[in-house]
């Protein structure tokens, strides 16, 4: 059930490409030739699927020059595979400012054929201060 304060930021769709998965596995030094998609691959679905870094900072109204990733949680409901088409919806669940830092909490639901397969919850931080831009 969606909470009242949640704001839907963006929706996008991405088909998991075998070659992109292999490139990602190589980048994380994962030695595995199966069609299993690595557990953190949802980040590729975001960035390659339509939530680019620029788009993300624009939607959050964050200065792209000082964005940090504070925390990340994944809840795996069903495994995903190459060839799957995933529809993602990103919600802003809270945005607070404390001591020059703004914390945005996001929740992304990844759906395959209408069923939720992964939920991501993350905190992004816009860090501005004396030593920052």
């Amino acid at each position: 059930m969606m909470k009242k304060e949640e704001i839907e930021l963006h929706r996008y769709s991405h088909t998991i490409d075998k070659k992109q998965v292999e490139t990602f596995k190589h980048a994380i030094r994962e030695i595995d030739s199966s069609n299993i998609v690595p557990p953190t691959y949802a980040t590729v679905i975001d960035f390659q699927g339509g939530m680019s870094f620029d788009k993300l900072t624009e939607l959050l109204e964050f200065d792209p020059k000082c964005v940090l990733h504070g925390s990340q949680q994944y809840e795996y409901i069903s495994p995903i595979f190459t060839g799957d088409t995933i529809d993602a919806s990103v919600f802003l669940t809270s945005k607070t400012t404390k001591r020059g830092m703004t914390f945005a909490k996001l929740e992304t639901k990844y759906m395959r054929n209408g069923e939720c397969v992964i939920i991501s919850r993350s905190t992004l931080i816009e860090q501005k201060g004396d030593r920052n831009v």
Partner: protein
Amino acid sequence: MFKLISTVVTRDQIKEYAKASGDFNPIHTDLEAAKKAGLQDCIAHGMLIMALGSSAIREWGVQSVKTYDVRFQSMTYPDEPLVLKGQWTDEGAGKGLITVENEEGEIKMKGTFTV
């Protein structure tokens, strides 16, 4: 306690990860941008460290992970030797702990997983 896994994230690997993931936050690959943001150097993506963690969990023989939850506690700089540590906190309940730290014991990432 699972076996310790040592690794080093190189500058080239950070660039490779940026391309592979599509995360082009400039603080990871552009030294000037990193310095303007108050950092001493480019930093590794938190998600790269998290991915190394998930590979370690797999290497430890843990399968069917249901949740994986981490906090990025400090910056990881290129060529910094890292140690990945893991253990069950309640094996019967399928709950485990993972940390990634440098040789001085500075924690880069701390998290939990459940199966």
